[in-house]
């Protein structure tokens, strides 16, 4: 694992764009009030940068040599998740710290816990980018993977905008009010005490992580170089 982490870390820090990104975070945070957006944006950038190590690995038939090194496919896959999270955390944490720093300097009033919670939720949602992108990138390769991501994104957007109509239509056929069900469930969840919500979110996180990891490993085991 050390070798893989060293490699990925050095792959990214070679690029001048990494330094530019960090500078960008600091800059944007001082100028915009919508810190939450900035944190999300830069965390996403961090995510995508980490994902780019996958395409760098695959470039120029590099994966053949990769697996002649002391690496197993399982180890390679797991390292990608760990590295991606570490990189994401790096960006996210820096952005959060700067966010608080800026708020303190500008003497803005803020509730630490609610801001922190917002930030943690951002991290939570961005993890899903990793959980979805790694298996896709591994199965389809970095280039085709991008197209697949776009398609998934498009489907997601369609659901967001037309979801309500589709849901009502679909469930109406069975004589159930789908929307009411969703709203009721949402209210039910929101009404739960904090620790249950925390447990629930952690549970979903872990479940998705494991499923994503299992799929990725399965994809890698079948690959030949």
């Amino acid at each position, binding site marked *: 694992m*050390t070798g893989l982490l060293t490699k990925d870390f050095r792959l990214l820090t070679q690029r001048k764009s990494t330094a530019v990104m960090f500078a960008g975070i600091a800059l944007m945070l001082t100028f915009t009030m919508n810190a939450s957006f900035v944190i999300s944006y830069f965390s996403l950038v961090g995510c995508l940068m980490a994902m780019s190590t996958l395409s760098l690995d695959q470039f120029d038939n590099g994966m053949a040599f990769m697996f002649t090194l002391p690496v197993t496919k399982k180890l390679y896959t797991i390292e990608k998740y760990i590295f991606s999270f570490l990189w994401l955390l790096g960006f996210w944490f820096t952005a959060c710290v700067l966010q608080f720093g800026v708020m303190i300097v500008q003497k803005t009033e803020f509730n630490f816990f609610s801001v922190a919670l917002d930030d943690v939720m951002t991290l939570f949602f961005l993890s899903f980018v990793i959980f979805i992108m790694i298996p896709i990138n591994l199965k389809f390769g970095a280039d085709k993977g991008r197209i697949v991501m776009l398609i998934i994104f498009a489907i997601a957007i369609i659901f967001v905008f037309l979801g309500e109509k589709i849901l009502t239509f679909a469930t109406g056929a069975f004589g159930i009010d789908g929307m009411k069900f969703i709203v009721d469930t949402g209210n039910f969840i929101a009404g739960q005490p904090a620790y249950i919500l925390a447990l629930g979110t952690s549970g979903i996180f872990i479940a998705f992580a494991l499923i994503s990891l299992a799929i990725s490993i399965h994809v890698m085991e079948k690959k030949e170089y």
Partner: protein
Amino acid sequence: MIKLENLQKNYKNFGLNLSLEVPSGAVIGLVGKNGAGKSTTIKAILGLIKPDGGTISVFGKDPKDFTCADKENIGVALSDSGFSLVLKTKDVVEILAGFYHDFDKETFIAKCEENGLAMDKTIKDYSTGMKAKLRVLTALSHKAKLLVLDEPTAGLDVLARGEILDLIRKYLEEDSERSILISSHISSDLEGLCDEIYMIDDGKLVLHEDTDVIMGKYGIIKVGTEEYEKLDKQYLIATKKEAFGYTCLTNEKQYYLDNYPNIVIENNDIDNMIILMLGGK
């Protein structure tokens, strides 16, 4: 170290079926045309592709069961795959240190600098020769017992090739159990290094012979058409029609030297053998 028994791998228009052995302490050469199956064989040995039949045993194990520790004992140089081009030499140093317990950092750095691979240089800016040197130095850097080298000297001038072969020779001297499987188009490199040669064509074994037999017992006979008719053909393995008559390959040079003192007989080499055995008739 390596034992292939009827290793089979099938692609759309190609089928490999090969048996091969690399004993401990031996240097084995693999020659053949492009597409003959050399890379396929090497990839199967390294566990990069799964065979369709037959058995492969490396260090007594099936490559699909390789652990990281097993792989630390194999030094690899592939012709078409290597470290990412955006990395610098010093990155490679640290990465190798992270991968191999037995990585010899000082020697690697020293050898890189001796060979013009500056620490701050990006691989993208390397010349072809430098890339080849980096690949070979990488393979030699961690005391591996088995080296698998695919075209390690491709693209290098004769002096650079000599330097790399000397590096390999020194490596072998350090530990008499180290073995090498090397594939190459540059026959002279193999002639000065390999103990045995496997020649494959279209996925099949065409010849397996000790190098010194190939160089010493085999011979090239050049005869005019008339002489050819009178020639005892029982020890001719291959024949090629020429403008002047025929070029023939024999595995009993001495027989023809003794019985035909007036015909042209030359020493054999691997290139001539390839031309005569794998070229069209």
